[in-house]
C-alpha cells in the first residue's frame, strides 16, 4: 500500500500527454491512409469519415511481392535461429565437453562485435558466394546474427530447469538427442516464443542489408516502402495517402503478432534476462 503517490489526476494527464507525443506520428499515418490528399492538406489529423479503401488496394498492389519475400526471409531465418540456438544452448547448459568455456566465449564475444564492423565485408562475402539477389544471402547472415542472443537466453533458461529431470532421463538410458527432443524442446517453448518475437520484430524492419543484397523488385517490405516515394509531380492527388496506406500495411504483421504474443515480447524484455 505504500506506493506513496496515489492515483492523482496529474499522473494520468502527464501520461496521456506523453502517450500522445509518442503515438501521434503513427496516428497521423493510420488516419490519413484512409483519406484523400486534399483532406490531409486541410486537416492533417481529421478523421476519415469516408474511408478511401482504394488507397489500400493500390498500396497492396505495389508491395504484395515484397510481403511474400519478407515472410519467406523472416520465417526461414527465425526458424534457423531458434533451431541452431536451442541446440547449442542445450550443449552449453547441460553437456560437458573439452573446450566448452572457450567455445562459449566465442559465441558470447559476438555480442560485443557491433554490426557495422562486419557490414561491408559481409556484403562482399555474400557477393562472392553468388548469393546476391537470393533470399539465402539474407537468411544465412540473419541466422548467424541471431545466435549469440538466442543461445544466451536459452542457456540461462535450460540451466534453470531442475537437474533431476536430466539425471532421471540419463538413468533411463536416454541419449542426448532424446533428452533434447523430449525434455528441452517441450519445456522451452515459452522462451522460444519470446526469442522468436524479438527476432521477428528486428528482422522485419531491417533495411541496410536487404537494400544491398536484393535487387529492386525483389525487395523486402522495409526496403520496398522507401521506394514508393512518388516523383515531385505525383501522378495522383492521393499518392501520399497511398504511401501512408503502404506504411500502415507494413506495420500490420507486427501488430497482429503483438496482439497474440505481446506477453512474450514484454516478458522477454522485462524478465531480467536483459540486465547488466
Amino acid at each position, binding site marked *: 500500500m505504500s506506493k506513496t503517490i496515489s492515483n492523482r489526476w496529474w499522473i494520468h494527464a502527464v501520461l496521456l500527454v506523453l*502517450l500522445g507525443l509518442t503515438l501521434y506520428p503513427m496516428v497521423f499515418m493510420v488516419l490519413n491512409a484512409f483519406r484523400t490528399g486534399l483532406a490531409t492538406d486541410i486537416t492533417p489529423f481529421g478523421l476519415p469519415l469516408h474511408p478511401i479503401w482504394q488507397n489500400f488496394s493500390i498500396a497492396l498492389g505495389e508491395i504484395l511481392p515484397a510481403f511474400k519475400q519478407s515472410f519467406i526471409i523472416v520465417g526461414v531465418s527465425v526458424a534457423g535461429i531458434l533451431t541452431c540456438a536451442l541446440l*547449442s544452448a542445450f550443449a552449453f547448459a547441460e553437456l560437458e565437453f573439452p573446450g566448452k568455456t572457450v567455445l562459449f566465449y566465442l559465441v558470447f564475444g559476438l555480442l560485443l562485435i*557491433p554490426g557495422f564492423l562486419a557490414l561491408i*565485408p559481409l556484403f562482399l*562475402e555474400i557477393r562472392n558466394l553468388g548469393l546476391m539477389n537470393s533470399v539465402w544471402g539474407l537468411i544465412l547472415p540473419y541466422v548467424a546474427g541471431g545466435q549469440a542472443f538466442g543461445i544466451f537466453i536459452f542457456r540461462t533458461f535450460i540451466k534453470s530447469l531442475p537437474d533431476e529431470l536430466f539425471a532421471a532421463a540419463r538413468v533411463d538410458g536416454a541419449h542426448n538427442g532424446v533428452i533434447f527432443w523430449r525434455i528441452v524442446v517441450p519445456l522451452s517453448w515459452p522462451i522460444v516464443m519470446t526469442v522468436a518475437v524479438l527476432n521477428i520484430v528486428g528482422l522485419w524492419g531491417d533495411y541496410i542489408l536487404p537494400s544491398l543484397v536484393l535487387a529492386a523488385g525483389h525487395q523486402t517490405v522495409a526496403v520496398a516502402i522507401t521506394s514508393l516515394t512518388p516523383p515531385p509531380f505525383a501522378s495522383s492527388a492521393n499518392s501520399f495517402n497511398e*504511401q501512408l496506406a503502404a*506504411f500502415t500495411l507494413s506495420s500490420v504483421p*507486427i501488430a497482429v503478432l503483438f496482439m497474440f504474443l505481446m506477453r512474450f515480447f514484454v516478458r522477454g524484455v522485462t524478465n531480467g534476462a536483459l540486465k*547488466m
Partner: protein
Amino acid sequence: MQEQSSITVSSMTERIHSARKRRPINFSWSAYLFLLPTFLAIGTFSYFPAIRALVGAFTTWNGFTPPVWVGLSNFVQALQDPTLRQAAVHIFWWALIGIPIGLVPPFIAAELIFHLRSSTLQYLYRSAFVVSMVVPGVVSLLIWQFIYSPTGLLNVLFKDLGFPGLRHAWLANPHLALGSLILMGFPWVGAFALLIYYAGLNAIPQDIFDAAAVDGCEGIRRIWAIDFRLVLPQFKLLLVLSVLGVSQNLLTPLLMTDGGPGTATVTPGLYMFQAAINNDQYGYSMAIAFLLFVVVMTLTVVNMKYFQTND
C-alpha cells in the same frame, strides 16, 4: 623397453581411470554435433567478415582486383580526413543531446506508470506505449521526413500557431538538418527503455518503499533517492546500448538526408558506408569501421567501469 612400455600402459590406465573419474555423467562428444550448425553459421557469416574487416583496414581494395597491403596509410588518411572529423563532431552532439532525450522520458513514463495503484491501468498504459513498436523503424523515419518537409506537419503547426517565421526547410537547411535529425521524435517515449525501467522498478523490494515511507521520504525525493538509484543497473544497460546505437548510427542519416545537405549530417557510420558502397574504397571503409570499433569498445568499457553497480 619392457619397463618403459609398462609405465606407459600403467600411466594410460591411470589416465583413463582418472578421466573416467572426472568425467561427469553428462560428458559427451556429441555436444559438438549440437554446436555444429551454430558454429558453421557464425564462423562463415560473423567471424569471417569481422576478421576480414580488421585485416582489410590495412589494404586498399576496390572490391574486384585483389587487395593490396598498404600498412597504416588508410588510418593516416582517415585521421586527416576533414569529413570524418566533421562526422565525429556530429556524432558527439548526437550522443550528448540524443541520449538524454532517449533515456529521460521513458524513465518519467515508467515511474508514473509504476505509481498507478491499479495494475489493470498499469497494464493498459504499458501496452499503449508498446504499440509504437509495431511501426518499423524505416516507416517512422519516412513519416518524420514528411513532418520535416517544407509543406509538412511541423511547418503547418507553426503557421497555425501564428509563428509563420519559424517555418523552415528543416532537412534542406545545412544549419538545421543535424539538429532536426537529433531532435526527431522528441519527446519520444521509447517502448523498449520504458519496459526495462518498469521491470527494474518492479524488482525493487516493497520493504524499501515501506521503510522510506516510515522515514518520511516520499514523492520526488524518494524517486531521486531510491527509485533512480535502484534502477541504475537498467539505466546502465540502456546507456551502454544507446552509446552503441548512436555511435553506429547509419540508417537515420542515410534515409533522411543521405548525409546532406553537403556533409551537414554525415556520421562516421554513414561515411564508412558511403566510402564502400558509393566510392568502392573498401579498404578505407574498413579502416573507418576499425577506428569506430575501437572508439565504441573503449566507450563501452569506460561506461561499464564508471557505472559499476553491485547487483
